[in-house]
């Protein structure tokens, strides 16, 4: 069973704005191949003010598709269409207190229905600009199409490069076989073959060395943390973002995400991924938190 938040359940069991709006002047019909779900969004837009006065949805889909549709209509009602277009799929997911990675595409579908409905209202033709494939990396919610396109356009050859460019594979590593599969396929198109870079699974240096005294251990720990952050940096920079180490207090590691990453839909997942890497590298459990969550007494010091 999926781990749905209370909020998702609430919007599924008791959806808001179900059904078509009677005198709608905008309709958006979209479907997601990756789940077979489909959604019709109808809007009643005030032609003077361009305010969305009413919104209704009809959804053929799973629990989170219905909940995402319901959330979307709640979010956009009362907004102007320009304001509504600012709503990202992450906003929809956040409104629902999060969605499982496999279900993020349900929120994407909601956003696309909105774009389609607005295009319909404006008499434009809407065409979708992104394609979706099977989810390859669950840790970072990266799908096959994304990996494949990145491999192709950046001429990548190794799993590590894929991780640096897309984050896929940077967490638990169980998706490495699938990533190798994509590499093998894409490289074969160019007449090249995939060669694995060694056996993988490098043992973190810290695990091999015996326990050290607290003093030198602490410094070493910080260096290791910095090293991990340096490793994930290229992937973040590819998204026009960056990460900085702010403070380490015991098991809590505070970082500052900048640029595209701070608000990007992946912020939480990025932190999760960094945390996973740090746990592996340090050989101990740590928690990675955004500096915004730093307790005042530390932040002030």
């Amino acid at each position, binding site marked *: *069973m999926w781990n749905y938040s209370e909020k998702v359940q609430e919007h599924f069991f008791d959806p808001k704005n179900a059904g078509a709006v009677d005198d709608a002047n905008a309709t958006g*019909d*979209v479907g997601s*191949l990756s789940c*077979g779900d489909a959604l019709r969004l109808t809007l009643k837009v005030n032609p003077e003010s361009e305010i969305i006065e009413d919104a209704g*949805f009809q959804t053929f*889909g799973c629990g989170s598709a219905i909940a995402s549709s319901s959330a979307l209509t709640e979010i956009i009602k009362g907004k102007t269409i320009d304001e509504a277009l600012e709503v990202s799929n992450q906003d929809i997911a956040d409104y629902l207190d999060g969605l499982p990675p496999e*279900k993020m595409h349900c929120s994407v*579908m909601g956003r696309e229905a909105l774009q389609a409905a607005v295009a319909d209202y404006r008499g434009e033709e809407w065409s979708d600009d992104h394609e*979706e494939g099977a989810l390859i990396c669950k840790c970072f919610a990266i799908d096959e199409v994304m990996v494949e396109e990145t491999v192709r356009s950046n001429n990548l050859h190794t799993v590590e490069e894929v991780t640096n460019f897309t984050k896929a594979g940077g967490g638990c590593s169980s998706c490495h076989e699938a990533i190798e599969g994509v590499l093998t396929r894409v490289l074969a198109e160019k007449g090249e073959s995939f060669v694995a870079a060694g056996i993988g699974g490098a043992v973190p240096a810290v695990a091999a060395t015996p326990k050290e005294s607290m003093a030198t251990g602490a410094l070493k720990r910080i260096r290791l943390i910095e090293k991990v952050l340096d490793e994930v940096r290229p992937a973040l920079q590819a998204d026009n973002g960056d990460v900085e180490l702010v403070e380490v207090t015991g098991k809590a590691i505070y970082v500052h995400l900048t640029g595209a990453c701070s608000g990007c839909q992946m912020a939480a997942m990025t932190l999760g991924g960094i945390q996973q890497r740090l746990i592996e590298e340090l050989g101990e459990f740590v928690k990675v938190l955004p500096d915004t969550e730093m307790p005042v007494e530390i932040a002030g010091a």
Partner: protein
Amino acid sequence: MKDIYMDNNATTMVDSVVVEEMLPYFSEQFGNPSSMHSFGNKVGFALKAARKQVQRLIGAEFESEIVFTSCGSESDSTAILSAIKAQPDRKEIITTVVEHPAVLTLCEFLETEGYTVHKLKVDTKGRLDLDEYRSLLSDKVAVVSVMWANNESGTIFPVEKMADMANEHGVMFHTDAVQAVGKLPIDLENSNIHMLSLSGHKLHAPKGVGVLYLKRGTRFRPLLRGGHQERGRRAGTENVTSIIGLGKACELAMTHMEFENVQVKAMRDRLQEGILSAVPYSFVTGDPENRLPNTASIAFEYIEGEAILLLMNKVGIAASSGSACTSGSLEPSHVMMAMSIPYTAAHGTVRFSLSRYNTMEEVERVVAEIPPIVAKLRKLSPYWKEDGPAENPEQSFAPVYT
């Protein structure tokens, strides 16, 4: 009110008699059956008894034909990999499009290793074309692997006949009988089936124990090499308690075989008839003429399976669905797609799988609960208008797919 469990093709409750049979072997007789001391001396006998109980249920000629494994998937992998390792010159495999992933995923992997895998197609009722099958049999084929009964639709394949056909061509035959064992009478002694997989947790034994039946004389290469357990055919200290549980469960299945095929079937039939007559635009998938007695797979058109399951769960009814969402995969169930069930119905399939623990009262409760659930979701569906599907549903709602 007690929750209703109708998902027995996924897994079953361990029978309390089975649990009792197992308990002493956790703490009193915990020894290793291979040891010389008295802590293990009863264990060897208990394993032997369990082997006999399994042998009887599947009608094997010799008890040494029973190899205990860790699960159905391990038995499947062992069988197929053994067949190809033992016959390295044969580079083809015949299977079907509707196998369990335990077989299909392995076969797809073997394709990347240079094997040719022929997947037999099925018709709209999930039936195989035996002429197509015959035309593929040759001395290039290492093994045929065809399931006895399908886990989703319950459709039964004529595996005994197919094994005869394979035998005429000198081809090894394996069947994944994980869903069939305990529900259908099986007589392996008088069949040409060389290998058969079964799994404990589908017949009221614990999870994590399975069996590979290996007809005496069949060429074999173990998956796990090591100790002499299972006569060197499956190394690793035996999962003693679970094997003992499985033995007992097989004995119970034997005594309940008639109940399964009369009473359980009657409950299944009532469930199916009750739902179909109350819910318009619903139909049974698979082959109702050749079907497990406990399974009814019903497609509810224009709505999606996971949503149905969530609402059913809320009223305390457990079943499963072939929708893409419940499996976390891209497509709706490969079994439904293989039967060319339209996509707006394939997503809305719900599998009810009963057991001897269900009652007719439960069936009536489910029959009463399902129609309002379906109606509630159809009200939300863009394919549905008031009390029927929208006219030309596929045209009136034709979303842009991304």
